[in-house]
């Protein structure tokens, strides 16, 4: 059983998509200073630890604090040759909900793709009823909000949502395991920062996994 309560058989077909035999592409949206580039690099590092090929890169601008920034991560079971930008992501990680009104965040999202939005509120509460409807239409379990900044404040003491967003992504998609995310964090950071990020990622993973399990049980 996976953390999602799915059977091994489901898991196999999921694996076909999740960057094991086919490429899985993630686009990160955030603001300069929120660790958007670091988050993409951590995801690549986590995939590498699971013996897959990964490529992470920023949106190559003149980065400024607070300006909208993007980063990208590709994961595949075979070497990645392309160096083009990610235009049709399998998953979107939106680290700052205030971007929803500025940028076309959902451009190119693949049908059946995943969205993880950093917010303590639901899509409906955020005034994103359309998005909530779309989520239900597609698969409500693929569109989630997660209060990553609050988790980061609680465990790290700083509102840097990258690590909990990755924990949430791991639970939501299974594209990488939590252990790989934690190992990538341990490799990147040291001391209290490493411990805080790891705790926030774990808490996010458990939150999303338990929400998914609860909703399945309800269904």
């Amino acid at each position, binding site marked *: 059983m996976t953390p999602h309560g799915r059977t091994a058989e489901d898991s196999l077909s999921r694996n076909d998509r999740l960057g094991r035999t086919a490429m899985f592409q993630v686009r990160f949206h955030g603001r300069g200073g929120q660790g958007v580039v670091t988050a993409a690099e951590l995801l*690549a590092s986590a995939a590498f630890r699971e013996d897959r090929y*990964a*490529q992470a*890169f920023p949106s190559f601008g003149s980065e400024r604090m607070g300006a909208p920034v993007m980063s990208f991560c590709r994961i595949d079971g075979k070497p990645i040759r*392309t*160096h083009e930008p990610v235009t049709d992501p399998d998953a979107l990680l939106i680290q700052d909900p205030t971007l929803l009104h500025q940028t076309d965040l959902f451009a190119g999202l693949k049908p059946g793709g995943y969205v993880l939005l950093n917010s303590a509120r639901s899509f409906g509460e955020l005034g994103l009823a359309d998005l909530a409807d779309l989520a239900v239409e597609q698969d409500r379990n693929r569109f989630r909000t997660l209060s990553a900044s609050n988790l980061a404040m609680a465990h790290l003491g700083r509102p840097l949502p990258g690590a909990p967003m990755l924990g949430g992504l791991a639970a939501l998609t299974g594209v990488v395991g939590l252990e790989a995310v934690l190992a990538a964090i341990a490799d990147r950071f040291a001391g209290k920062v490493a411990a805080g990020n790891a705790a926030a990622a774990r808490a996010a993973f458990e939150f999303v996994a338990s929400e998914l399990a609860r909703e399945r049980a309800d269904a």
Partner: protein
Amino acid sequence: MLKQIEGSRAVAEAVATCRPQVICAYPITPQTHIVEALGALVKKEELNAVFMNVESEFAAMSAVIGASAAGARAYTATASQGLLYMSEAVYNAAGLGLPVVMTVANRAIGAPINIWNDHSDAMSQRDAGWIQLYAETNQEAADLHIQAFRIAEELSNPVMVCMDGFLLTHASERVDLPGQEQVDGFLPPYEPRQVLDPQDPVSIGAMVGPEAFTEVRFLAAERMRQALELIPAVAADFAGQFGRPGGGLVRPYRTEDAELIVVALGSVLGTIQDAVDELRDDGIRAGALGITTFRPFPAQAVRETLDGGHRLRRLVVIERALAPGSGGIVTADVRGAISAPDGRPPHPADTIISTVVAGLGGRAVTRKSLRAMLTSAARGDLPPFSFLDLRQDLVESELARIRAARRSGPSAENILRHLSVTGIG
């Protein structure tokens, strides 16, 4: 050791294992992470080198020239305007025959100012007398640096390793970084051909008049001829010792039976290979030819690859830099290469060459656009000279503005204004 690592960091670590004794550089985007990482290694005493801070790129190249002439293994890195600013000294390093190794994190040249990737910078120095190697991946970028020091020192000629700014320098990819012992086994300590030594004084860099300048230049050409033999030999030795290919003169991909071959340099080759596979699935016999060594230009290797597929009819040369008024820099060399040295006509005689300017100033070169362009090339619809993904509407509106009024204003700013208006409207 296999790592998931940023390209700049991988290059810094690879350069560190080459034991440079003097590193001298001035930071410029997108090269900065490389010299930052090397500076940190020196500070942590993980690398025993002198790290010189200087006030400009001109000073950086001048200092590595001095260090190299004093017998030190010397390294620098730059990009774009920085490369232009050091240009006089770039020529001097080659003219003096000093085996400096420099990374160029390829970036456009202004104006208009642009920090993004293309090959304008390195291409501007292609005839400065340096060997120029272009990396396809971050693995190759790391490996090329290890080979570069050996090539430079064996020939006593500087080597420029070009890697695409941002696309490679800022991308985290899987890189196998060799250990110190492995690199030590491949790269012997620097034994200078010429050295400034107070115990045995010589002059380096004297004025040379008409009586001997031509002969000194002939020897520069001769070193490049020798490089054409040495570079594949070093690449083969590298492959033997490190267990993976990398470097060399050219890199053919599915060219054996190809009727359409794309020629390119740098990281765009990966995207091109994906496009070639898609074209093959469409029934088009496509292939790609990567040029790893651009200077000296490997004319014979290019010719042999293109001659190999006797059915070849179409050649598309991707230019990551524009030569205004002439068109394609790489195209000119490729065209020269497929004319045999004895002046015979190109083989096959009816090969059609198209130049496609692509990826200027950070414009993404996508598989989708490449595939569409190459499909039209296969149909015979591709013009001899074109720009990939050109916004024709923007160009035409600015041309109309220029025709309409004498004081039409600055074109770059006009186009930007036009873009934001259409963006809002």
